[in-house]
């Protein structure tokens, strides 16, 4: 009997219409856990680097985390893995909700999709019964509406459905996969699902998930809950309200958006307004949120309620979480939360990413202003709105955002070009448009943040993150030193989550002001410290993505209830495998290195590990070089970010090295000259 897992994956070939139930290898579980880890292993084994994202050979894997379906709190994440149309690298995006546990109860750990269906279809998985069903009647339908209709059509209200909207069907490069209140947003995974002509996957499961050592497991679970309660009552000092406790950033509860409206840049990541947040705006936004928010809701088996159902008058109800509350209005120079909550409904129905899409649209309007695009490119577009008096905002693009969102989701006119993302659109439009494409990393749009002095931690995370998305790398370590040394000392006293005691001292010694001392950015934390800190933060995300845990109780927050010291015990009690902290750390290194290896094989090199040039106005090339060198060394990668023979051997990945040699990526003497594959 398998514990915590089911022992089977579901393999679907949409070209041939074949469905197979394939036994999984317990040795892979031991080495790669589940979720992201085993997804990556499958990719390495089965998808050669020549494969294009829109090739039928590209796999689309929905992996339930190792602990999903067990009573472990917040173990509900699905890791979706495929080749991204945006970055052309391996993308992995997670979603919470209810789908992953349901898949486990149906008896599967993953759904692996290959090939392309000739017609639009959806999958219906009901325990052992799996069908590929016609979805022609769902074409063009909104993502949430699709989920509701499928449940009705199957007459199975307890079914959990994931689906794409029109943007996914039309292969918009930043289309999402939506599920209930959650979505796998980054990397354009929805476009791959649409390319495979797969509208949705409905799952209903009624079988058991077994626990190896129940009493021990439940005791650990109780401890996690007790500490969660403690943390909800004891916020982290000097941290913005949305992140001071646990959970996904508490955007649905917190009305004070001073921090975001000051820190983030408006429009095409250009304009910072430091005096936007006034009592008048605060009152207006608080009232808007109050009038549209119906209920705070939680995901499967989670003690928090980070999401909310939102019901804008005259529009369908939808669910929102986190920062999507802000990105749309920022991009549109809009001072109105009403606009933000309304356009998000349409965006989620289309199924587009809330970080990329507003950036793409703001980029287009900047090109229009610069005369690179003209009014002829936007036939029938409404004029810009009025600028809000009393703010430094330019005229808003609210109505124009609706117009362009429709065009992009439908791939009509200019929307067809923009639907490929800013990087490709800029090159297609040409005429100097490239200059305006200034906020991407590895061709994917980033949060609109433009700051002053380089921050070594964030430099490393932005540059090297395999997720190409900052919110999925940071979390464990405070972003800034607290103002007083005493507060810092107090903070580290019960900071037992750290992997090494010295990380506490790094924080205590971090100076908050010039007056306090010189341990300040960019030279502090020192490259060595910065690498250790980032390594830990990143590691926690790889743990979560493989176990299926929500970062809200883990990687996203400081002092979380899940950490490197209790997780090995939880894994052991749930699965019966013998895990300790060293083994868990080793497993995450293995997963991390394999992901880098997959992307190295696809042509990723050091030159791509770069934040946007204008992310900080003060850059330090020498220091940056040192940071990257040091980080690669810590990771066991060579100077060009290729995992070394020794580190691969240590992780039991000798087959990766052999493949590198065979493909000429490295020679016996080290890495070969850069050669772009595929």
């Amino acid at each position, binding site marked *: 009997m398998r514990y915590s897992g089911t022992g089977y994956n579901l393999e679907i070939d949409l070209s041939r219409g074949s469905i197979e139930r394939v036994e999984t290898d317990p040795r892979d579980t031991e080495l790669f856990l589940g979720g992201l880890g085993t997804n990556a292993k499958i990719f390495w084994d089965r998808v050669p680097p020549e494969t294009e994202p829109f090739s039928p050979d590209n796999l689309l894997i929905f992996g339930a985390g190792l602990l999903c379906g067990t*009573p472990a709190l917040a173990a509900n994440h699905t890791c979706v893995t495929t080749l991204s149309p945006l970055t052309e690298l391996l993308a992995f995006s997670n979603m919470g909700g209810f789908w992953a546990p349901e898949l486990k*109860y149906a008896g599967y750990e993953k759904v692996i999709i290959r090939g392309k269906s000739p017609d639009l279809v959806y999958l219906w998985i009901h325990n052992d019964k799996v069908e590929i069903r016609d979805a022609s009647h769902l074409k063009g339908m909104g993502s949430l509406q699709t989920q509701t209709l499928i449940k009705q059509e199957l007459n199975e209200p*307890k079914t959990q459905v994931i689906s794409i909207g029109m943007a996914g069907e039309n292969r918009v490069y930043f289309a999402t996969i939506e599920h209930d209140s959650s979505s796998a947003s980054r990397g354009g995974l929805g476009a791959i699902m649409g390319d495979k002509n797969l509208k949705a996957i409905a799952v209903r499961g009624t079988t058991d*998930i077994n626990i190896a050592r*129940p009493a021990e*497991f439940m005791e650990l679970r109780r401890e996690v809950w007790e500490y969660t309660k403690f943390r909800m009552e004891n916020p982290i000092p000097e941290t913005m309200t949305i992140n001071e406790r646990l959970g996904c950033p508490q955007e649905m509860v917190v009305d004070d958006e001073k921090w975001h409206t000051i820190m983030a840049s408006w429009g095409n990541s250009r304009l910072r307004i430091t005096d936007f947040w006034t009592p008048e705006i605060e009152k207006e936004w608080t009232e808007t949120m109050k009038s549209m928010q119906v209920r705070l*809701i939680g995901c499967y088996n989670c003690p928090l*309620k980070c999401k909310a*159902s939102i019901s804008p008058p005259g529009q369908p*109800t939808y669910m929102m979480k986190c920062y999507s509350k802000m990105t749309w209005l920022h991009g549109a120079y809009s001072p109105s939360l009403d606009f933000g909550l309304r356009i998000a409904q349409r965006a989620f129905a289309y199924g587009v990413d809330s970080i990329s899409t507003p950036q793409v649209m703001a980029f287009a309007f900047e090109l229009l202003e610069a005369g690179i695009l003209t009014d002829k490119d936007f036939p029938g577009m409404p004029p810009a709105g009025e600028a809000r008096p009393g703010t430094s905002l330019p005229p808003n693009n609210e109505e124009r955002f609706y117009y362009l969102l429709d065009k992009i989701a439908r791939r009509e006119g200019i929307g067809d070009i923009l639907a490929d993302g800013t990087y490709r659109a800029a090159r297609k439009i040409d005429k100097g448009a490239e200059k305006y494409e200034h906020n991407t990393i590895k061709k994917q749009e980033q949060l609109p943040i433009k700051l002053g002095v380089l921050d070594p931690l964030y430099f490393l995370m932005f540059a090297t993150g395999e997720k190409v998305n900052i919110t999925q790398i940071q979390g464990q370590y405070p972003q800034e030193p607290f103002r007083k040394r005493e507060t810092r000392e107090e903070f580290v006293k019960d900071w037992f989550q750290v992997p090494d005691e010295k990380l506490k001292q790094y924080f205590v010694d971090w100076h908050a002001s010039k007056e306090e001392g010189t341990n300040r950015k960019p030279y502090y934390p020192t490259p060595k410290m910065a690498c250790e800190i980032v390594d830990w933060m990143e590691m926690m995300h790889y743990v979560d993505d493989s176990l299926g845990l929500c970062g809200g109780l883990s990687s996203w927050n400081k002092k979380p209830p899940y950490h490197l010291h209790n997780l090995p015990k939880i894994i052991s009690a749930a699965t019966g495998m013998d895990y300790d902290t060293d083994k868990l750390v080793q497993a995450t290194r293995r997963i991390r290195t394999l992901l880098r290896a997959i992307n190295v094989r696809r042509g990723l090199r050091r030159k791509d590990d770069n934040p946007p040039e204008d992310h900080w106005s003060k850059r330090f090339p020498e220091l940056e070089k040192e940071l990257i060198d040091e980080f690669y060394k810590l990771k066991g990668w060579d100077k060009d970010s290729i995992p070394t023979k020794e580190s691969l051997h240590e992780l039991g990945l000798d087959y990766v090295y052999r493949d590198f040699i065979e493909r000429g990526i490295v020679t016996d003497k080290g890495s070969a000259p850069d050669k772009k594959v595929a």
Partner: protein
Amino acid sequence: MKAEEKKQIVKSIKVDVDKCTGCRVCEVICSSSHAQPKYSSNNPERSRIRVVRDPITDRFVPVYGTAYTQAECSSKVKDTIAGKEYDECSFCGASCPARDLFKEPDSGLPLSCDRCEGEDEPLCVKWCYYNALTCETREEAVEK
């Protein structure tokens, strides 16, 4: 002979549908605590409490499994309570042929809430994070 007045403990669970976040921890704890051996497996389908959840229409109703019935209702109804429409089965805990709730998935045998006999309080109540489920205990004279 004067009959001694007998008293019994009556437990009453309060379900506040407005406080429910739809997390289904009640289903998790119910199904795993009723597993043999205790907590050795988890499967919400075996739970004696199910959450009727629909965030789009804002229906969040935890329902307890009540009793077995041989035949489904002939008449279908839809309740409008406090201005919200609830589906016919939203408040019904019957293990009934018309639906697959409150049935052992293997045997089809009916499942009904036993108030977690042997525990201090029903575990769904104990674990409900937002007090959508609370339990009150009172003494009541036994009817003659």
